[in-house]
Structure formats: structure tokens, C-alpha cells
């Protein structure tokens, strides 16, 4: 392990008693608990952490927080690797491994920096003007893009699935306090004392916010934290970022529960996503220090002044020995004194010339040099700053005048003022307002349930923050109807330096020659320079949004947290307008980047969506069925008889068996709806195209429903159980939609009908028993009931029992065979199936799956999903006979629109291949036997199968003027598969069109 050259012997909030090692770019680095990766790197003297995106310039740590634009690293390795991690927010832990994301061969020596030599040819938007190519196609650009893409991006995505787990928590509170700095802590205390249920969410590991970066105020902090933590109605979430504010006072939070270790403890989530429904909230999100823009302001060693203070006081790291603090406000003066006391030679370069005496005397006492009325114009140094050039300020627009002087230094701390963190406010649909006194964007107007407090609301000092926080907490509690007495809270005793008194907002410093130095960077991550902004303006990209998009300023991973306001000020200057007239860009969620895994929680893999299982599923699984998804259901597709039997062989075998003997298929997934009430028959007459009021008790009827626009919606068979009760079945896929529609009609326009509908899909297991021996099998299973053709004709039902369990037997056929559907209370479904299999053994009973069921229905010409595609009419599907002429029904008017009545519409036909050995693919297009094959054809093939009965391939299709073309030879063209198959057009029903078998 190496030394920690910049770690002070005393001070900071780290645990010096414990030392561990972390690895950065294959180098061992010493760290202590309480360090961040950035503080450890700085303590160990690491200057260059990354390279910039465009010009590969060396970049070091800039900040100490979430706004970090430079120090992005590839954290961890293997399946747990995380690109673009901010070293400033990554907590150090033993065994941490991180790497720079750019630089070849190394981040210290990056050959990519050669790009910098061509910088002048790469101004903002240069790619819009080049790579166009001479020919009218995309080839030249795509050739160039190939190389451009190679340079794209920064970090590397993991290659393997994430081994860690995540969880989602729903939370409710009266007051959510975002941020636990002085304002947030005060707000939480006030709200909790008033009796509100409070959630206090802090992105940092520790509570305290900016107080953690100071050496005074600890007594107040400890007392306040202790009281807040002691209250039973406060839940404190640390390491928790409130990333988004949404409608309904709902907030999205991510807690990095176990991100500060390499591998979370067993069963513990790495991150936890909190969805907080708050009755009201306090936004105490603080403010982010704004850089100053000057020549070479991107060199390692140029840092945010407040970050220098944080590294000093929180981490015991003195980032430099000769420090220049460049500012235009008061906030750096306390920092200067602290840095000087820690042993650094400190020079303040303050753009303001008329400094208050109080500041001057303090700095004199602390042996800090002050150059008032000066500005840093340029830095010197190759890979880190070694000196700065300063010049006297001239005017208020960032101008300087000669002569220049040079000050040697190893760190430059910059403070251009502070930018309140208004992201959550903005996400609630509000525009911030520019305050010309405070030189900052502040919340505009009010949202009754969101109160801003502290620096984000414009509080200038910690004293202000505490009082505004306490008031905000009480106000938020009152908004949630808690008006208990919150008492008072004394502020900490601090000598506060604000950032507002006499402050200046300078977009960029000009050299004495009047020019902004070439390497003055606004967006440090995207290398956006002043010249880029000037060019954008020159070319007419004068809206802030155009500027952002044309120059990419503010579009990096930090989303402009440090760069937006300065760039905006520069644009305002160029336009000759005040900042309020130029406006600002909108903050979009998330406040800081959010990992996908966190939000998804446990809804991953198989549990991405719920899966429905039939009550008989266990039997199918034990039998070795091959399953397939049907809607949300998992259903047996076929039951392989040997491991090698494929689906094709399997379904043909199963379908053939049904026609020869008897088969069972599990149709439990059919939608089933109880329709009850005195007006049930009237209701069904309205929703079905055909008549149900005439249906006799004990009988079944097939029905079709239309959408209101006249297209076919769904079909199914309905039984009349009594005068006032029907049992409706729907297709599996549409079950939910049909149910919702029936409820809609009954609860809105038809609320006068005394009808209620209830889904009973889960109440019943349904087994279809089909085949010439089906009656024999059923009769043998339910001895007492009379299932003869006379007692139970087709489309009738009977009540019976299987082994003492009452069941209902519907005689109906989907396969065209003699067939029944047996309805069994669900928990008996499995054993009823097993019983049918047992009893049926002598009759050769066999199970069949959805594939064989489909083959049988195609042979019979029944329509299903391929035909009921939401674009077909009754006529298209040869179902016109089901349209009653004696009554009105939903869809009956709009189905008569002219295009839907057009006799040339594609309508249902059967297709049989002329060469029985060739198959057709569903989705093939239909064309006449001769002529061109182009356009949309005469229709398409909707369903196909091999017909065991006919010994050839058949299909259903929708063919223009179909019924008039029986016997015609047409071509089924599968362009994608490169096949053309000649078919003869037939009626849709291929097998037993007279229904002899099903009526047997």
C-alpha cells in the first residue's frame, strides 16, 4: 500500500482506526470507512481520473457530490460492473475495484488526446455539416458512423445477468422531507412534532447535508438528529435519492441499501425502490455550486470550492498545498481560513473589488491573501494545474485588463455562486423563476402540497435554512391536516458566509484582449466551449433548447447540474437579453441516474408478468406435456409420447386419435362469466348479435359479440341455467376484455337492467371430452346421469356427478366429433381428469393439447384467433346468419357502413393444397392462379394445419369474394419463405359438414 500524501493527520469524519485497500486502475489505494472513492483517490494523490468525451483531455475530481461531471469510473467487475459511476458518491469499501473509463493505453497517457489537435475542425454540430456524402443514399454516413460509434459511450455494460436482487416498497406518509441538511432536518422535526407521519430521505450516508462539510455546528446537528431519530412517527431513509416527483404527490426514491459492499448479504437487496405517496412534501434539496468558466478550467486540480471544504472537513483530505480560490461571492472565505489552518498557502481571487471589511480582516487573521477585483484568466500545466494567470477585472461582464500575473498553485477552487436544486419542483410541471437579486433560479409560485425550504428556496445561510426548514415542516404538516404545536428550533451558532451578498454571475472570464480563451469549458463532460455556444448562436440556434441540442451542453450524465446556468448566461449575453428572457431548460426525471434493476424489483424473468395455471396443470406437467403461452395462461401444447416426438408429429397423432377414439383436452382457460338477474336474457340479446331470450333452460347457444364499430369482438357458447341465470363462455384471450365491457355497459348506459355479471373462470375446471367414444367414457364415469342422444341432445347440458362431486356436462363440439365439456369445481378438476383417464383406459382415452385442438377446429372450419383479429365482420367470417333481424344489438348500426358491406371484402374460405405433401404457412398472401404477385393480394391465410382426416394440408383464409370462388385454384405465396403453393378454394368446413358425427 502506498502513502496517503494528502490525508491530514487529524480531522474529518472518517474512521481512521480502520484501514483497507481498494483498487483503482490496478493500483492499491488506502481508504478508511467513511471515505468515498473520490476522497480516497484525492487522499492518495491521484490527479487524473478520466478523460473527456470529445477531446480526451485529462480530468480529475471536480466536486464532492452527485453533480460530478468528470470523475466517472467503471465500478466493480464481471456481472456486477457498473459504468459511469461517480467516484464522488461511491462509498469506499474493502475490495472495491474501479477503473477509468477512457484513455488508451492508460488514463495518464491517452493517445486519443491527438483528437485535441483537430478540435478546430470539430465545432458544435460539425457532424451535421459533414459525412453527407455525394450520392443519394445512406452508405457514406453509415461508413463514417461505423468509426464514430466505436468512439461512442464511456462505460461498458455488464455482459451477464445481474446476480443481485432488488425490491420495491410502497410507502405512505403525511410529510415526505427530501434532503436531511439543516433545512430538511428542521422540517422533519417540525412536521413530526406536529404529529405527522414523516419520511426523511437523504441521498448521503449520513444526515447533515452541508453541515457535514463544516467543523462547527456539530452540537446542533447531533441534538437535532437525535431528536428526529427518537420520534416514533419518523422513518429515516439514508443513502436514498428522491429521483422523481410525480402526479398525485407520489415520489420515486431509490435506497442504495447494500451498494456500499461488493456483494450484499444473503437474501438482501442491493437497492430498494420506494414509491412514496405523501400527503405533502418538503423539498430541502439544497444548492449546487456553480463553476466559473475561464481558460483551462478543466485541468485536474480545478475543483469546486465547496468540494475542497468537504474533502478537508469530512474526509481529512487537503487537496493541495498551494491553493487559489477563485470566486465572485462570500462563500469561499470560511473555506479559505480552514484550508490555511490545515497548512495550505491560500490566495483568494475575488472578482468583486469592494469587499466588506469583515471579510478582509478575517482573511488577514487567517493569513490568506486576497486579490480583490481580480479574475483567473487561464491555468497552466499539462496534466494538472501548476499555476494560474490572473488579471484585474474590468466591468461586470467578466472582462479583464492587463497586466496579467502568474500565481503558482496545485489546486484552484472555484465558486461562481450556487444553483438551487429545483429538479423535483420542475418535474411537477412548474417553471423556475430567475431571481435577479439572488442571481439564481428559484421556485415560482406555490404547489399546495410541496413546500420548498433551505438553499433550494433561496436561503443564503445555514441560519436561514434552519428557520425556513422549520417553517416549511410546519406548513407541510398543516397541508396534511396536522396542526399540533411544533414549538421552536434554535439555529446552530455559526458564522455564516452566504453566496448572495454582492454576488456576480459571470458567464465566462475574458482575457485582457477581450476574448474568452479558447479552452474555456462550460460542460466539462461534453467538452462544450464558449466557441461552441457562440457558433450555435451565430447559426440561429438561439433558444436554450436549441443550444442544448446543438452543442450538447447539459446532456451528459450530470444533465447540466454544473453547466446549465453558465451556458445560459453566455447565451443571454450573446442575445443581448437578460437571463429571465432567455429562460431555462426543463428538468426531467430522474434527478440522478437510476438503475433499471432497482425499479423492476422482483418482477423479473418468469415473473415479469403473472402466469395463470389450470387446476389440472399438475397432471399435465407430470405427464411431460410441452407447454405454450396462451394469453396469460400456460397450456399443454401437446403430450409427447417419446422424448423425440416433435410438435408436428404429436398433434397429428393426438388429433387422429380424437377422431378415432376419444380424447381429453383441458379447456379450463376459457373465460366463464355468470350472468344473473331478471333482465339477464334482455342483456344478452343486446350484447350478442343473435337471440338469447328464446333460449330454453337447459340448452346452450353459440353467440357472437360485435364491437360498437361493427367488427366481431368475441364468440362463445352460453348456457341457460335458469330463467334468470346464464353461464357465458368467452375466448381465453378476450375473457378479461369481455368482462370489463359487460360491466361497463351495465354500470353506465344500461344501469336500469337488473343484471349482474361475475367472472367464474377460476371456479370451474373444464374438460372437453371428444371423439366417437366420448359418450361411452362419460357414461362410464358418471353412471347415474342419462347422457344418451335423446336425453342430452347437442347444445344441451345435464347435471351429473363424478365420484360424488356434482358436475355439469355441456354437450357441444368444437372438434366436430361427438363431444362434451365437463364443468367441475376447480379443486376437483385435477382428480376428475385423472378419473376420466382411469375410466377411459379401456376405451383408449388420450389427452390432447392446444395444437391438436386447433387442427380439429380448422378441419371443422371454426373461427379462432387468426380469424378474429379485430378487423373482420360477421360476413367476412361467414357468420352473418347469427345476426338477428328481429332485434337491435351492440354494433348493429355501424356494421352496415358501406366498406364493411362491400361484397368484394376478403371472407372466410377453406384452402386445400393440390399437392398433399406440401404445407402452407399462415400469413401467406393469396393471389389468383395467374398474373402478377404484388400489392396486398386477394387476402391471406389465417390458420393452417395438416388434416389427419384428409391426409393433406388445409388452411382457413380470408379471400376476396371467397364464397364465389369455390373450386378455383389460387396461389398461396410466402415471400419470406420463398414458396408458392397452389390450393383449391373450398368451403371452410372440411370434415363432416352435415354434422353427423357431432349429432350422433
Amino acid at each position: 500500500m502506498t502513502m496517503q500524501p494528502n490525508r491530514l493527520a487529524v480531522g474529518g469524519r472518517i474512521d481512521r482506526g480502520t484501514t483497507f485497500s481498494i483498487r483503482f486502475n490496478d493500483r492499491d489505494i488506502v481508504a478508511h470507512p467513511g471515505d468515498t472513492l473520490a476522497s480516497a483517490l484525492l487522499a492518495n494523490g491521484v490527479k487524473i481520473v478520466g478523460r473527456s468525451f470529445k477531446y480526451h483531455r485529462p480530468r480529475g475530481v471536480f466536486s464532492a457530490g452527485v453533480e460530478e461531471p468528470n470523475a466517472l469510473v467503471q465500478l466493480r467487475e464481471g456481472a456486477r460492473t457498473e459504468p459511469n459511476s461517480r467516484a464522488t458518491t461511491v462509498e469506499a469499501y474493502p475490495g472495491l475495484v474501479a477503473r477509468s473509463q477512457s484513455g488508451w493505453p492508460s488514463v495518464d497517457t491517452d493517445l486519443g488526446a491527438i483528437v485535441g489537435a483537430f478540435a478546430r475542425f470539430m465545432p458544435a454540430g460539425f457532424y451535421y455539416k459533414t459525412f453527407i456524402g455525394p450520392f443519394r443514399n445512406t452508405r457514406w454516413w453509415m461508413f463514417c458512423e461505423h468509426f464514430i460509434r466505436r468512439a461512442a459511450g464511456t462505460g461498458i455494460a455488464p455482459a451477464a445477468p445481474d446476480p443481485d436482487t432488488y425490491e420495491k416498497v410502497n410507502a405512505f406518509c403525511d410529510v415526505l422531507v427530501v434532503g436531511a441538511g439543516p433545512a430538511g432536518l428542521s422540517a422533519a422535526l417540525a412536521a413530526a412534532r406536529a404529529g405527522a407521519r414523516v419520511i426523511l430521505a437523504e441521498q448521503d450516508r449520513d444526515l447533515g447535508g452541508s453541515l457535514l462539510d463544516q467543523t462547527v455546528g456539530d452540537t446542533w446537528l447531533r441534538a437535532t438528529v437525535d431528536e428526529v431519530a427518537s420520534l416514533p412517527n419518523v422513518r429515516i431513509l439514508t443513502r436514498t435519492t428522491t429521483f422523481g416527483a410525480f402526479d398525485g404527490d407520489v415520489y420515486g426514491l431509490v435506497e442504495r441499501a447494500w451498494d456500499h459492499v461488493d456483494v450484499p448479504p444473503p437474501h438482501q437487496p442491493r437497492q430498494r425502490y420506494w414509491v412514496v405517496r405523501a400527503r405533502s412534501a418538503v423539498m430541502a434539496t439544497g444548492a449546487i455550486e456553480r463553476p466559473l468558466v475561464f481558460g483551462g478550467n478543466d485541468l485536474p486540480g480545478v475543483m469546486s470550492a465547496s468540494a475542497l471544504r468537504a474533502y478537508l472537513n469530512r474526509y481529512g483530505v487537503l487537496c493541495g498545498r498551494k491553493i487559489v480560490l477563485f470566486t465572485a461571492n462570500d462563500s469561499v472565505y470560511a473555506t479559505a481560513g480552514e484550508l490555511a489552518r490545515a497548512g495550505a498557502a491560500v490566495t483568494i481571487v475575488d472578482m468583486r473589488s469592494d469587499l466588506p471589511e469583515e471579510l478582509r480582516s478575517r482573511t488577514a487573521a487567517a493569513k490568506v491573501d486576497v486579490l480583490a477585483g481580480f479574475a483567473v484568466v487561464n491555468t497552466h500545466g499539462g496534466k494538472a494545474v501548476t499555476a494560474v494567470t490572473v488579471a484585474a477585472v474590468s466591468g461586470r461582464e467578466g472582462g479583464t485588463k492587463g497586466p496579467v500575473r502568474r500565481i503558482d498553485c496545485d489546486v484552484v477552487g472555484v465558486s461562481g455562486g450556487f444553483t438551487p436544486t429545483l429538479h423535483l419542483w420542475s418535474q411537477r410541471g412548474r417553471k423556475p423563476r430567475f431571481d435577479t437579486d439572488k442571481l439564481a433560479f428559484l421556485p415560482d409560485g406555490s404547489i399546495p402540497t410541496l413546500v420548498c425550504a433551505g438553499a433550494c428556496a433561496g436561503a443564503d445561510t445555514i441560519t436561514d435554512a434552519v428557520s425556513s426548514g422549520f417553517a416549511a415542516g410546519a406548513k407541510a404538516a398543516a397541508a396534511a391536516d396536522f396542526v399540533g404545536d411544533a414549538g421552536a428550533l434554535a439555529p446552530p451558532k455559526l458564522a455564516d458566509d452566504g453566496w448572495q451578498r454582492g454576488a456576480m454571475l459571470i458567464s465566462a472570464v475574458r482575457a485582457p484582449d477581450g476574448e474568452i480563451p479558447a479552452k474555456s469549458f462550460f460542460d466539462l463532460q461534453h467538452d462544450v466551449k464558449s466557441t461552441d455556444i457562440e457558433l450555435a448562436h451565430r447559426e440561429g440556434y438561439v433558444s436554450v433548447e436549441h443550444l442544448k441540442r446543438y452543442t450538447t451542453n447539459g446532456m451528459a450524465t450530470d444533465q447540466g447540474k454544473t453547466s446549465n446556468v453558465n451556458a445560459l448566461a453566455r447565451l443571454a449575453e450573446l442575445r443581448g437579453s437578460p437571463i429571465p428572457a432567455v429562460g431555462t431548460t426543463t428538468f426531467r426525471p430522474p434527478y440522478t441516474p437510476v438503475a433499471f434493476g432497482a425499479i423492476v424489483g422482483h418482477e423479473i424473468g418468469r415473473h415479469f408478468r403473472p402466469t395463470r395455471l389450470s387446476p389440472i396443470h399438475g397432471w399435465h406437467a407430470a405427464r411431460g406435456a410441452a407447454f405454450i403461452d396462451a394469453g396469460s395462461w400456460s397450456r399443454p401444447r401437446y403430450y409427447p409420447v417419446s422424448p423425440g416426438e416433435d410438435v408436428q408429429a404429436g398433434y397429428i397423432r393426438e388429433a387422429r386419435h380424437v377422431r378415432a377414439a376419444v380424447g381429453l383436452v383441458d379447456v379450463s382457460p376459457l373465460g366463464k362469466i355468470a350472468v344473473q338477474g331478471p333482465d339477464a336474457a334482455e342483456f344478452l340479446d343486446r350484447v350478442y348479435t343473435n337471440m338469447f331470450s328464446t333460449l330454453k333452460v337447459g340448452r346452450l347457444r353459440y353467440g357472437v359479440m360485435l364491437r360498437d364499430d361493427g367488427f366481431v369482438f368475441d364468440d362463445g357458447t352460453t348456457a341457460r341455467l335458469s330463467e334468470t341465470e346464464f353461464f357465458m363462455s368467452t375466448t381465453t384471450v378476450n375473457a378479461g376484455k369481455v368482462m370489463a365491457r359487460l360491466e361497463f355497459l351495465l354500470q353506465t348506459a344500461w344501469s336500469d337492467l337488473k343484471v349482474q355479471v361475475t367472472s367464474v373462470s377460476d371456479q370451474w375446471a373444464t374438460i372437453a371430452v371428444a371423439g366417437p367414444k366420448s359418450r361411452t367414457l362419460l357414461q362410464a364415469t358418471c353412471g347415474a346421469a342419462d347422457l344418451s342422444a335423446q336425453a342430452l341432445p347437442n347444445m344441451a347440458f345435464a347435471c351429473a356427478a363424478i365420484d360424488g362431486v356434482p358436475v355439469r356436462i355441456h354437450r357441444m363440439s368444437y372438434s366436430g366429433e361427438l363431444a362434451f365439456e365437463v364443468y367441475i369445481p376447480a379443486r376437483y378438476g385435477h382428480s376428475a381428469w385423472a378419473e376420466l383417464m382411469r375410466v377411459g383406459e379401456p376405451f383408449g382415452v388420450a389427452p390432447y393439447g392446444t395444437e391438436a385442438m386447433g387442427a380439429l377446429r380448422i378441419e371443422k372450419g371454426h373461427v379462432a384467433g387468426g380469424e378474429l383479429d379485430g378487423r373482420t365482420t360477421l360476413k367476412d367470417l361467414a357468420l352473418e346468419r347469427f345476426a338477428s333481424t328481429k332485434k337491435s344489438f351492440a354494433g348493429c348500426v355501424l356494421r352496415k357502413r358501406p366498406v364493411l358491406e362491400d361484397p368484394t371484402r376478403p371472407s372466410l374460405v377453406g384452402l386445400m393444397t393440390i399437392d398433399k405433401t406440401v404445407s402452407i404457412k399462415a400469413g401467406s398472401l393469396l393471389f389468383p392462379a395467374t398474373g402478377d404477385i404484388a400489392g396486398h393480394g386477394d387476402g391471406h391465410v389465417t390458420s393452417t394445419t395438416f388434416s389427419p382426416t384428409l391426409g393433406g394440408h388445409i388452411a382457413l383464409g380470408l379471400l376476396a369474394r371467397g364464397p364465389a370462388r369455390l373450386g378455383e385454384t389460387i396461389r398461396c405465396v410466402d415471400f419470406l419463405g420463398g414458396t408458392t403453393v397452389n390450393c383449391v378454394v373450398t368451403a371452410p368446413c372440411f370434415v363432416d359438414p352435415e354434422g353427423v358425427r357431432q349429432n350422433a
Partner: protein
Amino acid sequence: MLEFRSALDGHLSPGHFGAAAEPGKLILSERPLGALVQVGGWRDSFESVAAPLLQRFGFAGTGGFAMAQTAGEAIAFRTAPERILLNFPSPAAWEAVAAGIDQAATPTLDLSHARTVVRVSGPAAAGLLARLLPIDFDDAAFGPDRFVQSTLHSVGVLVHRRARSAPCVDLYMPSSFAVTVWEMVTHNAASFGYQVSGAG
């Protein structure tokens, strides 16, 4: 008689799973449902017809939307304006009354097989439920006898806080979704550590 088989058959193996935890912190089990019957009706007559019917089982009346009523081992949930779910430990109690009900005035429906009930009990129950449902399970908001109909893993479920001294919550879920919901429950329970027990 045919074998009665729960939708969760084969999915609940007794034992301790997930993180280490003290016994009893979180217990998951299947509660045998018994009989579940829906009683419906019409706006103009529901109160007058359904209230006497419920009183025959010992309930005070049709009840409100948020609180379940209990009468002995029977429970009544007012799930919608003219809709009540009745749960009995066995069908006998219901069947004695059912035959005489005028179905035109009070349509009833047997849903005993349509739901499966998972019981969550122990001090960590509220924490687990917060991971599963968008409902406030704080004691103040979800005390004994409260029930809600909400969504768990996109599935509509009824959640009932039993009036017992220790936290104990029953989740009524559509039987076809029971396995998928059970798995979602156990995945979320793992960070607490949980015990699967055979009986509710």
C-alpha cells in the same frame, strides 16, 4: 369422492426460508377457504333483501366497504355497492339457507373454488405486504377487520386483516393465479426470512 386439491398443492413445503430470522417473525401458510359465496342484488332492494339474509348468519347488516364483519367463524365483505362475499368454514352453514333464496331478488353465486387464500402472519407481515401491494398497511390505517381489494403482481386480490392479537392477514386470490402470486410473495419474503407452515 374425488380428491380435493388446492391450487398451491405441491408449492408449500414447510420449513424456514430466506434470511435468518427469529421464529414467528413471518409465517406464510395456506388457509383452507371453506365456502365462499357471493350475494348480489339491485339498488332499489339490496338493503331490504340482503340485510335480513345476513342477519340470519349473525351479521349486523350489509356492512360498510372498508370493514369486514365477523359472526363466529363466518366473515362478510361488502365488496361493491350491491355485492357481499360471505366466507364460511364449511358449506353446511350456507347450504341450510341457500335453497330458500329468491335468485331474482338476491342472486347468489358459489365462488368457493375460485379463490385461494394465503395467510401472512407475524410482526413482519406489514413490511412484506408493503412490498406487494400499493396499500398503507400501517396499523393505524389497516387495523383489525379492515379489508381492501387491490392488486398484487397485477392480480386483483382481497386482503383481510384478521382480528387477532398478532398481525395476521389473509390474501384471497383467484385460484389460477395462486402459484404465480405465491412465488411473488415468497421472493419478497426472503429478505425478512420466513417460515412456511402447513396450517393457517
